[in-house]
C-alpha cells in the first residue's frame, strides 16, 4: 500500500503537511534546492522562467480586465475605453495585458530558438519539446481571440480573414466557419465565444506548462555544450543559483517591458483598432499582430487557399516531428560547424518572413525590366495594318521608340505609362515570401535529416567540468 515517503523537513508543521501531501518536496525538486541543474547554463536559459512570468502576468491582468470588460458587440469597444478612462489604473492593467502578449511571444520565440540552437529537442527531451510546441499553438489561439475582444476594426477584420481560412477545408470547411462564428458572419456570437475561450485557454496553457516542467524534470535541463550531466561535479542546485540569476533576468526584462507599457504603449498595436468595428468598412490593409506575420507570409506565399492554410499549419506541425527530422547525434550547435551557419540563416529567414507578412504582396522589390513584346502587341492592336506589321516585325528595345508608336496609335502619355507599368516584370514581395517559405521547409525536411550524415562535428568534451568544455563554451 502506497509509498513510504517520510518528509525530511525539520519544521514540524512543514513535515506534517509534506508527509501527507508532498507539496514542499515537489516545489523543492522542481525549482528549488533539491533540483540539480547544469552549472554552465548561459543567459539564453533565462527565457524559460521569463515565459512563466509572462503567463502569470497575463493571467492576473486578464482576470482583472474581465471584471470590467463587456463581451458584447455593441459595448465591447466602449467598455475597453471605460477601462482606459474610468477604472482606477485601468490604463495600466490594459497596457500591461496588451503589451504583455507581445512580450510573451518575444520571450517564447527566443526560448524556442535557444532550443533549436542547442538541440534541446533531442532525446530524451522529445516530449518536453512537443509540449512546448503545444503551448505555442495554444498561445497563438489565445492571442488571436484576445485581439478580437476590443472589437476594433482590426479585431473584426482580422477575425474575419483568419476564421475564413477554415472554409478552405474540403467538405466541412463551411460548417466549421459557421460554428466558429456562431452565425453567418463575424458578429456578437463570435465575440461571446471568443471571450469564453480566451478566458479558458490560459488555464489549458497553465496545465500544459506544468506538464512541460514535469517533462523537464525527468532528464533535467539541457546545457550549452549539449552533453549529458555526468555527476554531481557538473551540477549546482537550482536554488539559490538559478533563482537569483532568473531574478536578475526578470529585472532586465521588466525594464524592457515597462519601456513599452509606460512610454510607447501603442507601438506594437495597429491604429485601426482604435476605430470601432464596422462590418461595412473594410480597412485598406488587414494585417495580423506582429507575432503572426511569419506565418501570415507563409499563408500568402502559396497561391492556392487550401495549400496556403496547409503550409501555414504545416510550419508549426513540422516542429512536432523535429526530434526525428534532425538525425545528428550531437545536440549543441557549438560542436556542429555547418548546422551553426544554417541555424543563423534560418533566423534571418524567419525575420524575412515576418517582414513579408506586413508588406503588400505585389510590392515591387526589384524591377526586372518590361515585357516589350507585350507592350508592342498592345500598341500594335491600335495601329493601322502597315504600322502594326512594322512594329511587330521589329519590336523596338528603346522605349522612346516604342513611345513614338504609341503616339501614332493615339495613346496619351499617361495611357502609355500605364501600359508599361502593367507589363513590368518584377521580383515582388510574394516571390520573396515563396523563396523564404521554401527555405523554411527545406531547413527542416531536407537539411536537418541530411546534415546528421554529412556534417563533421567537433570533438565533444568529456564532461561539463573538463577543461575542454570551458574552452568550447561561447562567452556568456
Amino acid at each position, binding site marked *: 500500500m502506497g509509498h513510504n515517503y517520510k518528509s525530511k523537513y525539520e519544521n514540524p508543521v512543514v513535515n506534517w503537511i509534506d508527509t501527507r501531501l508532498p507539496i514542499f518536496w515537489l516545489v523543492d525538486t522542481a525549482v528549488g534546492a533539491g533540483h540539480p541543474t547544469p*552549472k554552465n547554463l548561459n543567459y539564453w536559459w533565462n527565457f524559460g522562467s521569463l515565459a512563466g512570468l509572462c503567463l502569470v502576468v497575463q493571467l492576473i491582468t486578464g482576470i482583472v480586465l474581465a471584471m470590467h470588460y463587456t463581451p458584447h458587440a455593441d459595448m465591447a469597444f466602449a467598455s475597453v*475605453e471605460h477601462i*482606459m*478612462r474610468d477604472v482606477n489604473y485601468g*490604463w*495600466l492593467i490594459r*497596457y500591461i495585458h496588451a503589451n504583455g502578449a507581445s512580450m510573451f511571444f518575444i520571450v517564447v520565440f527566443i526560448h524556442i530558438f535557444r532550443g533549436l540552437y542547442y538541440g534541446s529537442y533531442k532525446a530524451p527531451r522529445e516530449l518536453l519539446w512537443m509540449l512546448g510546441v503545444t503551448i505555442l499553438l495554444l498561445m497563438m489561439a489565445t492571442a488571436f481571440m484576445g485581439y478580437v475582444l476590443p472589437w476594433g476594426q482590426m479585431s473584426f477584420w482580422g477575425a474575419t480573414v483568419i476564421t475564413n481560412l477554415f472554409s478552405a477545408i474540403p467538405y466541412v470547411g463551411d460548417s466549421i466557419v459557421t460554428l466558429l462564428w456562431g452565425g453567418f458572419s463575424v458578429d456578437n456570437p463570435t465575440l461571446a465565444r471568443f471571450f469564453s475561450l480566451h478566458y479558458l485557454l490560459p488555464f489549458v496553457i497553465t496545465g500544459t506548462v506544468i506538464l512541460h516542467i514535469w517533462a523537464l524534470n525527468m532528464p533535467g535541463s539541457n546545457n550549452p555544450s549539449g552533453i549529458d550531466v555526468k555527476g554531481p561535479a557538473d551540477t*549546482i542546485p537550482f536554488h*539559490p*543559483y538559478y533563482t*537569483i*540569476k532568473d*531574478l*536578475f533576468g*526578470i*529585472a*532586465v526584462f*521588466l*525594464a524592457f517591458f*515597462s*519601456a513599452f*507599457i*509606460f*512610454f510607447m*504603449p*501603442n507601438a506594437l498595436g495597429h*491604429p*485601426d483598432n*482604435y*476605430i470601432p468595428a464596422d462590418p461595412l468598412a473594410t480597412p*485598406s490593409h488587414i494585417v495580423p499582430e506582429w507575432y503572426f506575420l511569419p506565418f501570415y507570409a507563409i499563408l500568402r506565399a502559396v497561391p492556392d487557399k487550401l495549400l496556403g492554410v496547409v503550409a501555414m499549419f504545416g510550419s508549426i506541425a513540422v516542429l512536432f516531428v523535429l526530434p526525428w527530422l534532425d538525425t545528428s547525434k550531437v545536440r549543441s550547435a557549438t560542436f556542429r560547424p555547418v548546422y551553426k551557419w544554417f541555424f543563423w540563416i534560418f533566423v534571418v529567414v524567419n525575420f524575412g518572413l515576418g517582414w513579408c507578412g506586413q508588406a503588400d504582396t505585389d510590392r515591387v522589390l526589384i524591377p526586372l525590366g518590361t515585357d516589350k513584346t507585350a507592350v508592342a502587341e498592345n500598341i500594335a492592336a*491600335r495601329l493601322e495594318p502597315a504600322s502594326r506589321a512594322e512594329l511587330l516585325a521589329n519590336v523596338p528595345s528603346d522605349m522612346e521608340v516604342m513611345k513614338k508608336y504609341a503616339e501614332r496609335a*493615339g*495613346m*496619351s502619355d*499617361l*495611357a502609355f505609362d*500605364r501600359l508599361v507599368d502593367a507589363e513590368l516584370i518584377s521580383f515582388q514581395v510574394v516571390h520573396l515570401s515563396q523563396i523564404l517559405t521554401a527555405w523554411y521547409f527545406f531547413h527542416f525536411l531536407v537539411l536537418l535529416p541530411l546534415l546528421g550524415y554529412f556534417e563533421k562535428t567537433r570533438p565533444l568534451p568529456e564532461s561539463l*567540468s573538463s577543461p575542454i568544455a*570551458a574552452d568550447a563554451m561561447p562567452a556568456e
Partner: protein
Amino acid sequence: MFKQLTVPLTVAAAAFGLAGPSLADEGIEYLTSEEATNKYHAYPEHYEFAHDGVFGKFDRAQLQRGFQVYREVCSACHSLEKIAFRNLMDLGYTAEQVKAIAAEYEVEDGPDEDGEMYFRAAKPSDYIPGPYANVQQARAANGGAMPPDLSLITKARPHGVDYVASLVGKGYGQDEPEDMQISDGQYYNPYFHSVLLAMPQPLYDEMVEYADGSFPTVEEMAVDVTAFLTWTAEPKLEQRKRTGVGVMIFLAILTVISYWSYKRVWADVKK
C-alpha cells in the same frame, strides 16, 4: 484636342458608372485614385509638444486653447463622445468653470414622472453631446460622409498626432493637381490617405479669438487642437509617464542589486 475629348468622356463614364481606368486607353488624362495616392500622398510633418518624451506634461493653456478650437469649429460636425464635462477639470478648469461650460449645452433626459423625455442644461457628469442625433443624420448633413468621432482620433491614425496637425494645419489650400478628377464635395489634401476627402477646409486664419486676445494662424490652431485631441485620446498620459519614471528607477535599482547578488551567490561555483 485630348482635353476637349476628355470632358464628355468623363461625364459619360460617370453616367454609366464606369471607373476611370477602364477607359484609360481611350485617352482620359486623369489619374486613378490609386495612382493619385501614390503620386501625391504626403507623409505628415513632425510636430513637437510639451507632452512628448519621458518627462512630458500637457501644456494646460494649450489644451484649453485646443478645446476652444474644438468647441467653436470642429464640434459643428464632429462628436467627442468619450469626454464628459467633468473630465475638463484635467485641462485646469475649476469645478465652477466646468459647471458653467456644461450649462451652455442642452442634453436630453428622462423619462420624467409623466413618462416624457425632456431637455435640460448639461451637468458636469454628462458627456459632451455631439452635433447629430444619429449616424444617418450625420451622413445626410455631410453629403453621405460620416465625420468621425474625435475622442480617439490621434491614436486611430498612423502617426496620429502629426497626421491630425498636418491634415488641418497644412494640408488645405494647396494647388490642386491638374491630373486628378475632383468632384463636388471632394477636397484635395495630400495628408489624407486617399488625398481626397469630404471635409472642406475647417480652419482659417484668425477664425477664433483666444482668451489672451490674440488671433491665431491656421497652423497654430491646428497644433493646439491636436494637443487637445491627444489629451482626449490618452487622458492618463501624464499619470502613465510619471508612474513609468518611478517604475524605471525601481527596476534600475532591482537590476543592480540582483546582479550583485547573482555574482555573490555564484562566487564559489568553479567554472
